[in-house]
């Protein structure tokens, strides 16, 4: 509690950073399009969207979870388990029309397990989701072993990698936009969203205001799990390969993108447009650097520095003024 108060920041910071990150992202996109060969092509746009899709999807509910002051580190493992189960059921000759909803449901259940530990037992979410990070990933390996299942139907894999007929817009972008709008509206224009901010700012005060923080957080974890399950399905179809290690380590990229988007790790502050900008910034930097033959290593350094700078920068500016 007190640590949060010690580092409590002024409300003004949020809006500023949100605008700043969107501006930075726009500048990076323009510079990349102008200076990096074939960055601005339609085909590359498609690749870019597909590359950042899983991070963007998972970042949506993650934003809400972090705004309430919690965290969900198990998302990438949920994605992996969803993918593994998808492969397992496909091998068991189940129709894919059944498998996909089952995987989403599985994601919801895995999220509910996190929610149960955090809200009902009152355990710290960092520890809980580090535990389920290992647990879910382990189960994914138990389900599918080290093997890969590959022969998913072309109708589905083509849809995921394909574009809307006659346009360069990838099909999956629709899924992303629809979900982003839904989460954006929920967070910024509904009582649920206001409750999310209230709980993040002060759980006790929120409770006095008639909000039930436990129930709210529980359902946010369910949402987080469900979306991770969906991301697992899309990941599997994109690469037409179900593997237990799919998406390993993705949780760090998601958290990095959300924090870069101006969401406070202590909760109570953040906005979805900033998060989207954060995801796009990381994704396009990665894409542009790769096209310029800059090595992976540089990318790691850039991600890390950006992450620290996103919190450090506003703090330092505030201190000076």
């Amino acid at each position, binding site marked *: 509690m007190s640590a949060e108060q010690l580092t409590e920041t002024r409300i003004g910071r949020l809006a500023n950073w949100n605008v700043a990150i969107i501006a930075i992202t726009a500048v990076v996109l323009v510079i990349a399009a102008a200076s990096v060969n074939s960055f601005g092509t339609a085909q590359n746009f498609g690749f870019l969207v597909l590359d950042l899709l899983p991070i963007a999807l998972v970042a949506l509910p993650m934003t809400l979870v972090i705004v309430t002051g919690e965290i969900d580190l198990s998302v990438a493992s949920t994605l992996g388990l969803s993918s593994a189960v998808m492969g397992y059921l496909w091998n068991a000759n189940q129709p894919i029309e059944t498998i996909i909803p089952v995987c989403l449901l599985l994601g919801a259940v895995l999220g509910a397990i996190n929610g149960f530990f955090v809200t009902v037992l009152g355990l710290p979410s960092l520890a809980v989701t580090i535990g389920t990070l290992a647990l879910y990933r382990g189960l994914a*390996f138990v389900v599918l072993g080290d093997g890969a299942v590959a022969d998913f139907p072309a109708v589905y894999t083509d849809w995921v990698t394909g574009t809307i007929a006659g346009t360069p817009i990838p099909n999956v972008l629709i899924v992303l936009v629809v979900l982003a709008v839904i989460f954006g509206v929920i967070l910024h224009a509904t009582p649920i969203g206001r409750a999310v901010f209230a709980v993040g700012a002060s759980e006790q005060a929120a409770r006095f205001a008639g909000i039930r923080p436990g129930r709210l957080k529980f359902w946010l974890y369910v949402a987080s799990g469900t979306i991770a399950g969906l991301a697992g399905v899309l990941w599997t179809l994109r690469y037409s390969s179900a593997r237990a290690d799919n998406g390993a380590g993705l949780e760090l990229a998601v958290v990095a993108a959300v924090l870069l988007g101006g969401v406070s790790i202590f909760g109570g502050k953040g906005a979805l447009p900033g998060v989207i900008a954060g995801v796009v910034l990381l994704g396009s930097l990665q894409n542009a650097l790769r096209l310029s033959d800059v090595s992976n290593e540089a990318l790691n350094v850039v991600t890390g520095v950006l992450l620290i700078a996103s919190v450090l920068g506003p703090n330092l500016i505030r201190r000076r003024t």
Partner: protein
Amino acid sequence: MTAVELPAPKRSSLDVVLRARELGIVLALVLLVAVTTISNPRFLSGQSIRDILLNTAILAVLAVGQAVVVITRNIDLSVGSVLGLSAFTVGTLLQNYPGIPVVFALLVGAGVGAACGVLNGVLVRYGNVPALVVTLGTLYVIRGVTYFWAGGSQINADELPPSFLNFGTADIPWLVILAVVVLVVTAVVLRSYRTGRELYAMGSSPQAAQLAGIPVGRRTIGAFVVSGGLAGLAGVLFAARFGTIDAAAGTGMELNVVAAVVVGGVAVFGGSGTVWGAALGALLLTTIGSALAVLEINQFWQQAIVGGLILLAIGADRLVAVRVAAGLKKRGSHVG
């Protein structure tokens, strides 16, 4: 000891709880070893025990450092990357100057790690950036720097001086001895020295600690330096034990370390737990790994078991904490 007089009366009852907590891990460990040994007596052979202890040594050193940070209500996710950087630094150094004594190698490794720790600590303290964010960032940055430097090169055992490799594999288990020394020294400092108690106070309530005149800033940086330094030391142990070092050494290790600390009963929100527990957690996790191989249980279960164990441990801690709180309240009302 003025700063810690407040919790002093409670210490006896808390001590009992903490002992019970560590006893739980010991019991789990004994049970695991018993079951495995019954199924395959060679599990308790000298060579096998030696292997487990050697493997534990590295994780235990990391876990001790992590525990110090976690007790202050912070976290250090960069330890895996720091281990990699230190291992590669020392490996390169020994490759070029094979005459360097092992002690010097250990100091260099710890120094590299401590420098990373200073970076983390300063950012947390003066940048006002949460430890989770800082160390997640430095996890990327330090690993990236290592990759930059190492490129595709790998240091093989035959490029390292035999005296150094002997340090990792000799009949006298130096790694284990070193880990025990680190453990005991840290435990004593945390248990019986003012600085150590101040770390607990900071973890229990950073605000109160500051008001009580504890130099919170210096102590925070100190905790990160200890964690970084020990991660650097672990990097040297890693190099000596495995003899093959590339830029990826220690990738993903942070999760095992945090798992060991949490299983060992150090509360993620600071203020409680011991380094003994953290080291026992490391021993338990390593033994599980070896036992699964010997019991011929599918290796894939290992990660799931570790995950389950973390949930079990924090669940149990919560239960104990609720009981203790209730007990203290009762006693408090009698006194008051």
